[in-house]
């Protein structure tokens, strides 16, 4: 398995066979740059979760107000 193939697998989240997973793990264990790349993938996951939990989202009051508007609009139909 080449470094490029490992990067393609890790980037796309491709499902590998049992043998494929073993080969990839062995490659990651021995290859510094690919191991770094794998670390970057894990860091991206952590960063995007942190970004959305710290969030560009709604405050409690804004969320409640939006929910109230939606409920009034929907249930006005019943």
């Amino acid at each position: 398995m080449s470094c490029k193939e490992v990067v393609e697998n890790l980037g796309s989240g491709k499902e590998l066979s049992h043998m494929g997973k073993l080969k990839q793990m062995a490659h990651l264990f021995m290859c510094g740059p690919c191991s770094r790349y794998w670390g970057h993938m894990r860091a991206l996951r952590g960063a995007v979760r942190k970004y959305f939990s710290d969030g560009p989202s709604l405050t409690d009051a804004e969320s409640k107000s939006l929910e109230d508007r939606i409920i009034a609009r929907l249930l006005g139909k019943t």
Partner: protein
Amino acid sequence: MAEAWDVSSAGFIKKVVAQDAASIERLVRAYTRHLHNAAVGMGFDPETAKEMVQDTWITFYEKVPAFEGRSSVRTFIFAILYRKGLEKCRELAKLRKHDPVDDVVAARFDLRGHWVRPPASPEEFVLAAETSEKFHACLEKLPLTQRAAFTLKEVDDLESEEICNTLGITVTNLGVLLYRARNRLRECLEVKSGWKS
């Protein structure tokens, strides 16, 4: 009673399909903020995201009597939101045959598939990724479909099948979108980390 309030229980779904007011209210309270987060995650500003969330609930309410339970209610609702987002941007779920990021990644390897420009050190990269402004600037550069696939996978933790249903794409296309999203973000953050290989 507890089972009836579990939003994934059969009893609850039955009530939702029958447009039971209390159950609909429960769903709106449970998912409105998540929907807003998802819309912002797709790249819409907070006000546009609010409008999209309202439109999503209206469409959901109209369509829910025909809901057959083949996916979860959550997936059903999020699918409506993502379809609206994609329609809004006229991108639909069409996959570009070529993306410049493919060339950027390819240029980092030699003909035998070995690194010629290895990745940045983990410490510098993590520092850049965890700096909100840098991460935001890089996330903004992702095309909508890549951004949607990436956030559904990494933030909403959906299974690949659910993401494919939501975005109306194949598993192969999802792999391509995730690959491009992750590499575009990675390359951007690497530059912002000041890494020079």
